[in-house]
Each structure stands twice: as structure tokens, then as C-alpha cells.
């Protein structure tokens, strides 16, 4: 064989000439990235191997950051509307003019009534700033997107565990032997979950995916439980039923860490019925059986043999007790009370929760449910997970090792995006608690700063101080009816009706109701709608067609019913067309951001962490005529222009020169600021005075900060002295007090009592039955509202969406690379379902809901529960949006399920939302499908926003090769 003449390759070329370490924002997971620049252009973005979130890996979106940053759809200049609203006709203006205009509108509305500003933000992570700003402005009408996102999950967790799924907790990837994923497709923790799943499968742990669709994580799960949407609560109850029946529960854990032994007053009709029995100091009581002889000490109700119980009521949180978990006890004041556990056991042992009873509705065979219960019990109890690490609990008791239950759960919007999601989420937590599987080795774990007190202490601001600012941030936690934001008649005060009797625990607000209510001036008119980073006329709206109408509708005088709309976006989204004034934001590579522990932390279970974004590229040099500003900078500027209290100095000068200045120097409480790292002289962490060099420390450390939880504090965080002390030192909690996990929620019972006519604050008559029904202190299951109000024979199918792993909502489609993966979506049907309707691949179907019709193409795939159809979320685009060509498949063939989703329940009353939290019930959608004639385009179609597609071949990188 002749010697080869191989070309000589240039293999030692440096990747770029600079590397900047910052934080990805192709989604909210917030991975660390190394951005390699060559000649001031992005050559390569890679995961930062040292970063605690992604440890070097990077998802498809993150890798496509180059195309996002250079997207032709970037907005370059402030825009002032010139045509009619919705026509997408603008004039470019200078920032001075834009800020003057905005400040004028904001000043005016604040002078009339600060609540006349509705400030709602979407996908951002600067709620620490925006919420504070709204508080300074004095409006109660502020929220971010959580209300339509996953507030059921947040609230269900925070009111039960003091922590939650979402990205605030995680399975013990290292030790768990059995992971159940409930309704998770991607989550905000995408890369950590993927890393964890890969690792767990490698260890041989079993992964079970409960999900009507089997793709993504479900595809690699050992077992797929193809459940019918909206029925997970029932499945959880059946598992609980089985575990109780078989006595496969962790009672020791329950009495140590939960309120299982707390006594609940039994006084039907009384004002105290269902509240915890408390002593004079307000401490919850339990029944201490003392050293009583075993046998016949107490008698459960209805058993017959009347033996007077021995023992006595004692504060439930004290130690050295032998608490009773079954029995009816007479309190010193003569009232009767039973332990929480008895209520739990009584309720879920009911045959209506047996596997056989729920199998049909859930679509999961009874035998499977029984097996799953056995597997859970085996994983939890047969071989406890032991970590040889001594620790000390809050009572000072030292434990030689950490012993835990190798069962972990993770859940997301498949649970929460239903109108029964709050209770379903609580049901999952109840199941975890019965297994003793919360923050033990092998189980679900809190990520600091969680756990927090239940509920967290901060309540929503409701009154204004003399300077016009609210007494507290507009979003907070409701502890009882007295915290609601209702008027004297008990009607909603907030524009979105959050914190009203209709949605009392709407702790993230209800962005999905804002546009309708602003249009309807319900409860009161607003002057300015200020929105940020939320595509509210399209994929984040329910009832899209009417939403577009509300945004453009005029009153009799010819004025827009929503007088002024200011919107900040970075790209030419569908929503931009509806603004009067557009404030162009930077891309994520051009600005400062704080990924703060005060907001949505990026911690993991073993460390607290926060991070920054900082400009790695100068926006002014990115494109001819580009003149954009970070929204946070703009917000601070506007606040200073209108003289908001904490935004100006006593001399009336802007207090913060820029957002970077604010990040470093603003203190939420003494020593507590947006960033926890390198405070003071640079050696204080968690708490400490502002440090002018703080951002340099971050930059030098790869853009992030992290602090390890001490080894002895890594589990049992709710009652671990070492953890709680550390957490207090860090400034996460005010006091190092244990967090008692709430099987039984007294907070909910307070609402129920109010609805039953007790207490000073009571719901209006129209709301009583609803509140009494849905504020059950123990988890309940009910048919999701849309289904319960419809003839299910007419709408026999459920329809849901899933996040594609390679797209972030609407904003991935402008990305030249990502859109090649999915430029259009299909309605996926089970082949059996398709056969019933005579459908084949690529046929067109009408999909009807009670609210409307879409006509789209279908594809057959057996990886879905047969009574469910699904599609990828937010692939469909409005014609001409995102600087795509008008004939782009996203617009002509793609579609949104949102056109079918009503923002109101079928009967027209309440919002299409959870009755406890106001969470948007996206996945309650019921549909019917019918064969349609072949069509050229999906329907509905809306007026074109332009025809902008730049179709010259894209040769990104050609320059680097030459260089």
C-alpha cells in the first residue's frame, strides 16, 4: 500500500481570542457558559464545567445561542406606534423621547392612582427588582408569569413542605433507588434533571414516568405509566390507600417531622372546627401517651369500646413524647380532638380510593397500581439508604447516621396545569411524607434557601404608605382570609383577581386574566399596561383571538379600552405589534442580570448558589443602528424620572446609576442584597455590606457564586440544626426554627371556616360554596373543571402540549438552527384513536373544543395514552412575526393549541384556573376531532405582521475558517 498523502490539518487553532464566562438565557435553567469570542464575534458557546447547574453540559438551546444573539428579529431601537394598534406599524425613536413618554404616562397614572398601572412580567428572572419597583410605585397590580406557569406546584409545595418541586428541590440523584416523574417534560431544571437521569440510570435505579405521553424522559424511564390527564391525584390516593392498608408507612418520620400527631379540633359547626388544638401560648398540641401501658389507651371514634385514654395533651413540637396518631382525645378545655394522621388514614382508606375504584378513571390498571405501591414501599423500607454522617437535630439530639428512604418524586406542569393541580400536588407531597421521603437520603431534597417557614412569612402588600409605596411587595403569601386583597364587598381588588375569594392563594398572580380584565375594567380601569418579556397576544395567552381583540378594542369615544401599552421585548414577537411604545431590550449576551437567591435560586441540594450575567458583547457594536438598553436599566431610569421613593436620593437624584450599580449596592435588608457572594470586603458570604468589587469577583469566578451546605446539614434540613444555623447565618431564614411539614393544612381550613360563616373576614355569598369545597385541609381530587362542565361524549379526548427540549416557548423559532429541527408541529394521535376516525399520517383534522376550532395536520404515534392527543408547545407562529417569511411553515402549517383554550370555564363564570391558586388550567382542555378536507394551511390564520424572512444562505462561521 502506498503511503498516503493526507492533507495537513490546522489542529492547534485557539477556539477564540477571548473567553467570557456568563450565564445562559436560552431558557430559565440558567446554566453556566463559556462564550468564546473571535474578532468580537461569538465563535463557540460551551457549558462551563465548573458551574454547579450544568457541570459543563449544554442543551440544544444553549448551543444555539449564537443564532439567537444574531437573530434578524432583534429589535434595535425604541418604537412608537404609528398605525392602529395591532398593525405592527412603528416609527423608530430615540431613547430620550421614549423614556420621556413612558415616564409621563407612568407619572400621570401614579398621580391618579398607582393601581392604574398594571405591571406584569413574563419569563424574566428579575422579580427581585421588578417586584420591588412595583412596590415603590405603589401598585398592587404586579405579578410575573408564575400564575399561568406552575403556581400550583409552588404553592402546593410551600404550603406543605416549605419547599417545592419546580427548580427548588431535586431528587437525591446520588442515592435514590426509585424515581417517579409526574408530568415532567423539561422543567426549569432541564440540564440538572438530564444529568441526574443519566446518572441514576447508570446506577441501576428505577425511573417511572407518569405521563400521558412517552417521549423525552418518559422514553428512557424503566416504566411508563400512561395516565389520563388530570387524574394523578386519584392515582396518588390509590397508592396511599395501598400503603396505608399494608401499613407500609413511616410513622416515626411522620411524628418527627410532620404534623401527623397534631390534634385537630373536632367541633362540627364550631368556629374552631378543624383548627389545631393549641395551648395558651398558641403552640399546637398532640396527645402524649406517656409511659402508659401498651394496649387500650385510646379509642378511635366509632370503634365502640369506651376506654378512657390515658396520657395528656402536650405541645406537639416538644420532644421526649410518645405521641398518639390514632384516637379521639378530650382536651383540657373539654373539646374533642383527633390527630391529623387519623384523619389522613380515615380518608384514604376509603374504598373509593382503592386501586380498583380509580383504575378506570386514571387509565392505569389496578394491578399496576398495586405493584407500584409495593415497589415504592420496597424501595423505601426494605433497604433504607444509609449515609454514615452524624448530624444533630434542632432539639440537640445527635444522630449517628443519616437514614433515608430511597424513593424520590419530581413533578411539574403535568400536575400543576390542571384546575385540580394544587390538591394533586399536595397529594404527591402527602404520599412522599407517608413514605418518609422528604429530604432524607435517597429522597426528594430541598435546595437552599428552602425549606422556608410554612407558609413563608411575607404577605402581599395591600396598603400604601405616605410616600405612595406599598407596605410590602405586591406578591406574598396568604396566611388566612385577613390577608386577601378584597374590597369591603369581598370583591377582588387586583386586576388579575389574585388573592380574591375566587383564587385566594394566587401567590404568583394571574397573568392569564390581565388582558381581559384590563379591557373590561374589572375591578377598575387601568391607564398603563407595562409588560416585559411575555408574549401575551399569542402563545402565553388563552383565548388568543379574543385577547387580540381586547388589546385593540376601543370604547364609544374611540379611545383604546386599554389606554396605554408599554412593552419591552428583545425580538419582534407577536406581542410587539400590540404596544404603543416598545422598549427594545438587549440579548442575554449584552446585559447585566442577577440570578438571585431572592428570586429563583440556582442552588442545588448541597449548595446555595447565585450568578450573574454581564455584557460579553457591546450592544452598540452588534449591528448598524442598534441602540438597545437592558430593561432593568430602563426600569431604574424610569423609576428615578418619576421620583419613586427608594429610587431617588433625598436630593431627588437617581439613587442607582445602572442596574449593575443596583445589583451591588441595593440592600433588601441590612447586609442582604441581590447577590450573596463576596460581600463586605469580599470575604463575607450570604450576608454583609455591599462590596463595590463584588461583580469582579463574580466575573473572576466564572460568573457564579456557591456555598456548600455543611456535610452534617445536607439532609433532614427541616429539622437539622446544622443546616438551619447555616441557613440563618447565610441570611436565608430569620430564625433557626424547625419547619413542621403540613400533612394537614390549617391555612386551608381557615378559609373553609370563613366560608362556613366564621371569623371576621368572610367570602361573599356567591363564593362560599366554592371556598368551602376546595379549601379542604387534606388533599382532595375532583374532576378538572372543563371536563366536569362538558358533555364528555361530545369532547371525548384530552389535549395537552409538551415543551420541546430544543425550543424555549416562542423564542426559539427565530433561531435559524433550532427551527430546522421543528419548523412546524403536528397533532399526535394514538393509532387506535386515528383508526376510529379513519385518519392516517399527514391527514388534516378539525379539532374542536367548547371554545373554538383549529384545523391542523395529524401524525400517528403510539407513545400517547389513547384518549389524549398532544402537540409541541408554541411552535405555531403568527404570519410575519419573528422576522420569518410569511410562508414559513411555523405560520402556514404550525399551530397553537391555545386557540382552543378558553380563559374562562365553559359556564362562563370563573377563570379557567385552579380554585385555590388561580393557576391556569392549560391541560384541562377537552376536544373532539373530525376528519377534514386536505388544506393548504392550518386554521385559524390571523392578519400578517409583515413578510420579513431574510433568505440569503446563512454561512455562519465562514469567516472564522478563513481567519
Amino acid at each position, binding site marked *: 500500500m502506498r503511503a498516503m498523502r493526507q492533507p495537513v490539518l490546522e489542529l492547534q487553532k485557539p477556539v477564540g481570542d477571548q473567553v467570557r464566562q456568563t450565564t445562559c438565557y436560552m431558557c430559565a435553567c440558567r446554566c453556566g457558559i463559556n462564550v468564546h469570542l473571535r474578532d468580537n464575534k461569538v465563535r463557540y458557546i460551551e457549558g462551563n464545567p465548573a458551574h454547579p447547574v450544568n457541570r459543563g453540559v449544554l442543551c440544544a438551546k444553549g448551543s444555539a445561542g449564537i443564532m439567537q444573539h444574531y437573530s434578524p428579529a432583534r429589535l434595535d431601537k425604541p418604537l412608537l406606534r404609528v398605525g392602529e394598534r395591532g398593525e405592527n406599524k412603528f416609527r423608530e425613536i430615540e431613547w430620550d423621547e421614549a423614556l420621556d413618554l413612558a415616564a409621563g404616562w407612568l407619572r400621570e397614572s401614579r398621580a391618579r392612582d398607582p393601581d392604574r398601572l398594571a405591571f406584569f412580567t413574563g419569563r424574566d428572572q428579575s422579580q427581585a427588582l421588578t417586584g420591588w419597583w412595583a412596590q415603590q410605585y405603589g401598585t398592587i397590580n404586579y405579578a410575573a408569569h408564575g400564575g399561568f406557569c406552575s403556581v400550583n406546584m409552588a404553592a402546593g409545595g410551600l404550603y406543605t413542605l416549605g419547599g417545592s418541586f419546580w427548580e427548588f428541590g431535586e431528587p437525591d440523584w446520588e442515592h435514590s433507588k426509585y424515581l417517579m416523574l409526574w408530568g415532567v417534560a423539561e422543567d426549569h431544571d432541564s440540564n440538572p434533571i438530564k444529568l441526574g437521569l443519566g446518572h441514576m440510570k447508570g446506577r441501576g435505579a428505577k425511573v417511572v414516568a407518569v405521563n400521558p405521553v412517552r*417521549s423525552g424522559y418518559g422514553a428512557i424511564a424503566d416504566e411508563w405509566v400512561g395516565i389520563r390527564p388530570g387524574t394523578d391525584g386519584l392515582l396518588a390516593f390509590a397508592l396511599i390507600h395501598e400503603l396505608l392498608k399494608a401499613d407500609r408507612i413511616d410513622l416515626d418520620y411522620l411524628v418527627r417531622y410532620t404534623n401527623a400527631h397534631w390534634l385537630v379540633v373536632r367541633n362540627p359547626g364550631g368556629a374552631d372546627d378543624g383548627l389545631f388544638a393549641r395551648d395558651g401560648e398558641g403552640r399546637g398540641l398532640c396527645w402524649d401517651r406517656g409511659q402508659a401501658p401498651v394496649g387500650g389507651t385510646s379509642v378511635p371514634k366509632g370503634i365502640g369500646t369506651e376506654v378512657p385514654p390515658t396520657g395528656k395533651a402536650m405541645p406537639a413540637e416538644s420532644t421526649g413524647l410518645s405521641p398518639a396518631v390514632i384516637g379521639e382525645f378530650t382536651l383540657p378545655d373539654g373539646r374533642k380532638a383527633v390527630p391529623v394522621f387519623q384523619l389522613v388514614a380515615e380518608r384514604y382508606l376509603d374504598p373509593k380510593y382503592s386501586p380498583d375504584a380509580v383504575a378506570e378513571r386514571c387509565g392505569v390498571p389496578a394491578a399496576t397500581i398495586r405493584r407500584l405501591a409495593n415497589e415504592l414501599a420496597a424501595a423505601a423500607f426494605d433497604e433504607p439508604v444509609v449515609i454514615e454522617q452524624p448530624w444533630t437535630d434542632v432539639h440537640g439530639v445527635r444522630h449517628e447516621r443519616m437514614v433515608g428512604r430511597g424513593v424520590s418524586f419530581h413533578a411539574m406542569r403535568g400536575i400543576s396545569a390542571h384546575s385540580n393541580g394544587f390538591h394533586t400536588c399536595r397529594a404527591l407531597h402527602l404520599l412522599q411524607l407517608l413514605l418518609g421521603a422528604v429530604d432524607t437520603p435517597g429522597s426528594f431534597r430541598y435546595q437552599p434557601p428552602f425549606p422556608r417557614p410554612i407558609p413563608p412569612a411575607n404577605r402581599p402588600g395591600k396598603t400604601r404608605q405616605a410616600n405612595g409605596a406599598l407596605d410590602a411587595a405586591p406578591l406574598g403569601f396568604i396566611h388566612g382570609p385577613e390577608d386577601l386583597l378584597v374590597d369591603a364587598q369581598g370583591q377582588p381588588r387586583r386586576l388579575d383577581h389574585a388573592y380574591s375569594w375566587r383564587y385566594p392563594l394566587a401567590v404568583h398572580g394571574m397573568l392569564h386574566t390581565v388582558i381581559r380584565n384590563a379591557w373590561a375594567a374589572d375591578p377598575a380601569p387601568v391607564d398603563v399596561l407595562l409588560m416585559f418579556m411575555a408574549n401575551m397576544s399569542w402563545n402565553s395567552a388563552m383565548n388568543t383571538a379574543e385577547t387580540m381583540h381586547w388589546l385593540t378594542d376601543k370604547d364609544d369615544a374611540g379611545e383604546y379600552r386599554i389606554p396605554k401599552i408599554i412593552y419591552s421585548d428583545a425580538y419582534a414577537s407577536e406581542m410587539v405589534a400590540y404596544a404603543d411604545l416598545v422598549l427594545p431590550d438587549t440579548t442575554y449576551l449584552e446585559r447585566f442580570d442577577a440570578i438571585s437567591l431572592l428570586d429563583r435560586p440556582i442552588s442545588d441540594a448541597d449548595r446555595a448558589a447565585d450568578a450573574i450575567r454581564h455584557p460579553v458583547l457591546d450592544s452598540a457594536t452588534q449591528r448598524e443602528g442598534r441602540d438597545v438598553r437592558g430593561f432593568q436599566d430602563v426600569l431604574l431610569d424610569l423609576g428615578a424620572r418619576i421620583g419613586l421613593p427608594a429610587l431617588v436620593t433625598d436630593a431627588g437624584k437617581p439613587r442607582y446609576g445602572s442596574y449593575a450599580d443596583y445589583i451591588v449596592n441595593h440592600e433588601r435588608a441590612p447586609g442582604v442584597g441581590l447577590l450573596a457572594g463576596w460581600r463586605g470586603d469580599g470575604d463575607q458570604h450570604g450576608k454583609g455590606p455591599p462590596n463595590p468589587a463584588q461583580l469582579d469577583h463574580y466575573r473572576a469566578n466564572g460568573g457564579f457564586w456557591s456555598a456548600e451546605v455543611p456535610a452534617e446539614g445536607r439532609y433532614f434540613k427541616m429539622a437539622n440544626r446544622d443546616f438551619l444555623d447555616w441557613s440563618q447565618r447565610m441570611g436565608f431564614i430569620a430564625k433557626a426554627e424547625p419547619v413542621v411539614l403540613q400533612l394537614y393544612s390549617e391555612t386551608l381550613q381557615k378559609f373553609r371556616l370563613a366560608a362556613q360563616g366564621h371569623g371576621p373576614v368572610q367570602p361573599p355569598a356567591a363564593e362560599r360554596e366554592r371556598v368551602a369545597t376546595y379549601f379542604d385541609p387534606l388533599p382532595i381530587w375532583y374532576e378538572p373543571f372543563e371536563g366536569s362542565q362538558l358533555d364528555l361524549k361530545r369532547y371525548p379526548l384530552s389535549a395537552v402540549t409538551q415543551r420541546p427540549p430544543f425550543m424555549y416557548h416562542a423564542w426559539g423559532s427565530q433561531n435559524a438552527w433550532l427551527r*430546522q*429541527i*421543528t*419548523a*412546524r408541529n403536528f397533532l399526535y394521535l394514538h393509532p387506535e384513536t386515528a383508526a376510529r376516525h379513519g385518519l392516517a399520517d399527514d391527514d388534516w383534522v378539525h379539532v374542536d373544543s367548547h371554545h373554538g376550532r383549529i384545523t391542523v395536520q395529524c401524525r400517528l*404515534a*403510539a*407513545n400517547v395514552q389513547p384518549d389524549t392527543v398532544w402537540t409541541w408547545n408554541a411552535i405555531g407562529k403568527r404570519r410575519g412575526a419573528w422576522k420569518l417569511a410569511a410562508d414559513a*411553515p411555523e405560520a402556514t402549517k404550525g399551530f397553537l393549541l391555545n386557540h382552543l383554550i378558553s380563559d374562562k370555564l365553559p359556564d362562563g363564570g370563573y377563570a379557567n384556573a385552579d380554585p385555590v391558586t388561580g393557576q391556569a388550567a392549560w391541560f384541562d382542555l377537552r376536544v373532539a376531532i373530525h376528519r377534514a378536507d386536505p388544506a393548504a394551511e392550518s386554521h385559524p390564520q390571523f392578519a400578517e405582521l409583515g413578510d420579513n424572512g431574510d433568505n440569503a444562505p446563512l454561512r455562519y462561521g465562514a469567516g472564522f475558517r478563513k481567519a
Partner: protein
Amino acid sequence: MHPAFSVLFFTTLSGAGYGLLAWTMLLLAFERPGALMGHTPLLFLGLIGTATVLFTLGLFSSLGHLGQPQRAWRAFSQWRTSWLSREGVMAVLVYLTVLALAWWLSAPLRGVESGAGLPDEVRWVIWATLLGALLTVACTAMIYASLKPIPAWRHPLVLPVYLVFALLCGLLLMMLGQRLAGGVAIAPLLVVAGFLAGLLALMKWLYWRGIDRRPLPVSKTSALGLPEGREVSVFERPHTEANYLTTEMGFVLARKHARKLRLISVLLFAFVPVLCCWLAWLFPDAATPVLAVAVLASLLGALVERWLFFAEAKHLVMLYY
């Protein structure tokens, strides 16, 4: 496989050209040199010229298929392994011999007296040209027949079919040329042509039957590394819109169209030529127009057949796309 017209024209025209060249060489080889030089050098020059135009057109057309035609010269380098390269090399060799022959044949035109006719050693060049023409066609066929991922092209009849196509089209062309040059007796050749046409129809029938019946030699499961027997269907392609692979290899032809097109091609390359040969035999006076029809039909038939050759060939990539 995507039927690219540049390639269809290439194989059809160059096939006919090399076929014509081959027949011309055969004729030349059996002519008495002296007689030839005296009587019909123009005919031979004309035939060789026509052949050269045809395969040159074909080769040019094939350049249209290239992304970087200006580098086509590089394609001569890999004759050790590559049939495409071999074809290129053969084509060049044939050009050389054709050039040499043309030089000799054009001697009278150049005013050179050569009453003695073609020198003897030229016979070797004639035979070499004949062989070269056929080998070039064979190389073309082998480009396809060597590709394992396209099972239809691995059929043993691919090579013979290419050759017979070249011979048929070439023969019809040659007869037409002879007629145009004036009344040469072609009766025996008409029989040969008819026979070739019939043979081709038979071979194509066998080929089509073969590819219709023969299952793909590789299973989906093997393509996915799964145990044999597992049933797999596509849930999602990697990209919702077409990509290079799906357009290049994923060309699908509806069965009923295929059947119709097969019939059309057989009519054109076999039935019409046979009919024409018969007519030309019966009515020698009308032979010229009739043969012209035959030539046209055979070329069109070859084009349709070539189109089908691509369109019906399934690339293994489509097992899993």
C-alpha cells in the same frame, strides 16, 4: 434516489455515444481499409464525430451534477478504487484513440494521399476504441452497481442493461447515419437491433421483477442496532422539513406511477424500435425517417428507464428516515 437530470442525460447520451462508437469501430474493423479510404471516410468520420458529440454532451451534462465542476480534473486520480474515476480515465483514453483515428481517417480531407488505406497497426487502435467505449459504459454502470446502500443497483443485470442500452441506441444511430450517408444495406443490422431491443425488454422485465420481489438486504432493526424482530416505526424525523438526505435519497415514487412509466419506457426503447426495424426492413425506402423515429424513441425510452432506475432505487437511509 433523486433522479437528477444532469445524471440522466449523462448516462443516456454517453451510453448512446459510446454505443455508436463501438458499432462504428466494429464496422470499421471489418471494412477493407483500402476500400474504406477510397469510398466512405466521411461516413466514418461523421459517425465518430456524432458519437463524440453525444458522449461529450453527456460528460458535460455530468459536470452539471458537480458542485465544483472546475475541479473535475481531480476525478482522474483515484482509478485504483473509484469507478467514477475509472470512468473518467476511460473516457480520456477513448478521446485519445478517437482523436488518433480521426487523424488517420481525415487524411484524405487534409489532402494527404494514402491510397493504401488505413495502416495495419490502426486496427489495434480500432479494437482498443471499441473496447474502451464499452468499458467506459461498464464503468458508468459500475458506479451504480458497486453501491451497497442502494440494493436495486446491486442487481446483476445492471451492468448488462447499461451495455445493451448503449449497443441498442448506438446501433440505431449508426444505421440512421448509414442511411443518411446513402443507401447502405442494413438489413442484417436491423435484425440485430430488433434482437437487442427484445433482449433489453426481457432484461428489464427480469430486473424489475427482481427488485420488486427482493426484500431489502438489511432490516430496520439492524439499522438501529436493535434485536431482530422488534417492530419499529418513525415517531419523528430529525428535522420537520426536508434535508439533503431526504431529498437526495428519499425520493419516493408511487407504485402506480412506476408501473405506468415502466410500460412507457418499454414501449419507447423496445416496442417502437422493433416496429421501426421491421418497417425499415419491409420498406427500405422509408428507412431513414423510420429509423429516425426509432432513434428518438430509444433515447427517450432510455431516459425514462434511467429516471426509473433512480426513482425506484431505495437507499438504505430510508430504512430509518
